């Protein structure tokens, strides 16, 4: 079986445009609080979600907008939820971090790692009530150091739960480089739990599609859990306004206010040795450099990558894109109109 590229592209582009619209609304101040988007993760989400059917469950992290839109939730309801409107997916009660759709058996959480136990629970219910259905957990590589997620890996193996654990690895645990706070090799770690652990290029939706097809099939047929480690780049960093990204994008503006206190700290009395202080500055600079690198050339944009592989012909492709753009614009207009009316 081969993936339907056009259908995947449609899902990914729709999700990208919805999230870009949410970013605009956030920058306009129409959305309060934090905003964690999945821009850059579309290849992972689409490749996995394409395997799911009725009754399958999704346990999401704080980046739930893209997976839900791809799973078929009305984009207008997602946008309205981000705006905190009664017409929102959760009546404006949850916001973007706590999106839930009972109809889709999909629930997000803002607690890092919480998707693991949640997916195990969904899968346990499947064993009793919906044999043959699976649960997918989405989380970042930062979450793989969270106790509850590690416990969930073991639980899923012991109970042969139909779970697919999908790790979206952007290399940053919030704003700390993951290598700094993660011991060993993640794939080896997961294999140590007794489940298959497969690396995949998250920017290549077709590769994700193939890897997740195998994992989902395995879970569906009683083979228990597996783990996908899908690498990706998120140009917006952890959340909109991510300080490292802002410094990388506007070094003069962002560093100006920080420079004075930082310079004083570098020479302040009764601190660490010169060597320790220099090491700290080098480490901070490296973090900023990392964010800068994700800005310069975004070669691994999963949406653009798949677009290059479509053999639709320019006219048909443009028509497809115009159609999705129109659909998303209409969803945004509907949601914003609700807000203006309220």
């Amino acid at each position: 079986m081969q993936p339907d590229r056009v259908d995947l592209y449609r899902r990914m582009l729709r999700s990208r445009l919805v999230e870009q619209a949410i970013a605009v609304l956030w920058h306009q101040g129409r959305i309060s609080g934090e905003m964690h988007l999945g821009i850059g993760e579309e290849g992972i989400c689409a490749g996995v979600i394409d395997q799911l059917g009725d009754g399958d469950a999704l346990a999401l992290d704080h980046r739930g907008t893209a997976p839900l839109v791809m799973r078929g939730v009305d984009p207008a309801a997602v946008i309205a939820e981000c705006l905190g409107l009664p017409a929102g997916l959760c009546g404006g009660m949850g916001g973007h971090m706590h999106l839930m759709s009972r109809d889709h058996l999909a629930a997000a959480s803002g607690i890092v790692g919480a998707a693991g136990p949640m997916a195990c629970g969904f899968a346990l219910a499947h064993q009793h009530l919906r044999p043959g259905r699976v649960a997918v957990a989405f989380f970042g590589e930062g979450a793989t150091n969270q106790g509850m997620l590690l416990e969930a890996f073991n639980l899923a193996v012991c109970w042969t739960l139909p779970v697919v654990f999908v790790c979206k690895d952007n290399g940053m645990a919030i704003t700390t480089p993951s290598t700094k706070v993660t011991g060993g090799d993640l794939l080896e770690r997961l294999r140590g739990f007794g489940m298959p652990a497969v690396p995949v290029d998250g920017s290549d939706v077709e590769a994700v599609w193939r890897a997740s097809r195998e994992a989902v099939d395995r879970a569906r047929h009683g083979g228990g859990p597996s783990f996908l480690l899908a690498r990706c780049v998120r140009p917006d960093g952890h959340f909109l306004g991510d300080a490292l990204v802002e410094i990388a994008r506007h070094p003069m503006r962002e560093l100006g206010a920080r420079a004075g206190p930082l310079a004083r700290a570098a020479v302040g009395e009764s601190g660490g040795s010169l060597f320790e202080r220099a090491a700290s500055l080098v480490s901070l600079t490296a973090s900023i450099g990392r964010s800068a690198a994700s800005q310069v050339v975004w070669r691994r944009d999963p949406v653009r990558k798949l677009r290059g592989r479509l053999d639709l012909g320019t006219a048909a492709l443009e028509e497809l894109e115009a159609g999705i753009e129109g659909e998303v614009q209409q969803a945004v207009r509907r949601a914003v109109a609700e807000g203006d009316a309220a």
Partner: protein
Amino acid sequence: MRTLTYAEAIEDALAQAMAADERVVTFGEDVHGLRMNLYTRFGEARVRPAPISEAAFVGAAVGAAMAGLRPVVEVMMVDFLAVAADAVFNHAAKVEGFSGGRWTAPMVIRCGCGGGYGDGGQHQQALWAWLAHVPGLKVVVPSTPADAGGLLTAAIADDGPVVFMEHKLLADDWRGYLGSGGRDTVAYDVPTAGREGEVPERWEATPLGEAVIRRAGDDLVIVGVGVGIHRGAEAAAVLAEGGCEATVLDLRGVRPLDREAIVEHARRTGRVLVVDEDYRDFGLSGEIAALLLEAGIGPAYARVCVDDTLPFAHDAERRALPNVERIVAAVQPWLAAT
């Protein structure tokens, strides 16, 4: 004297404590970036970024404290302390009791708390009563820069575990990090008196568990902590226009609780209004009612608290949090009766 923001006061007091005592170390998620100046000055050995493993690093703080360090461990928000609840409730809180007073865990848990910037019901809880419920813990909730620095100094010097709760509306580092994200298109109702203020050059410990009067009046006493006390003070100014003079009593923490001060002002004014951003049921407001009954006095009593899960929607969130209108409305029946 100099003027610092709430967040600067905390960082400054921590820097002074770290400079004075090499046993003071700090760790938590992203601290190298969030506490960039401390990280640069004191180096990574004393300012350590931690993995997203609250159960492990808060638990490690307990062990480190028992073995001679004075850790100031940071979890971004008190909501995340639920992930490390075992370390807090079953370990940090128990060391002194279990050892018959022979061993202690001198540690501080810093956490952001409170709402009003649109982060929803899983990231904006107050939860101080949940923590204060457990013997062996101290819980501090400063409402001004001077108190933040003074109470942190006391917390670090304390021989037991202290939870130090930084309201995210008052702390502009948290507000910028989590709320505005660098935008100038959003505005929050930040109490100016708590955001910035005069602080001493050298920090001295502000005793834990001592309430302070923010405003004096004879008609009622408004009791609370954190942003609640600023809302109470704003409401008191409104009430004063109608001739009702309120005392505003800032408890500055929840455990130890300044029971004497509460009883004294309840007795003097005959009316107690608790303003509490934490949940209404089984919390600080109920504890205050109980201690008044135990003291044998029965003042008029009312409370303005958070009654349910905090909504994300902006207007609903504003209505759910204690605000000036709710506080003034709670006092109205008393005014009507006089």
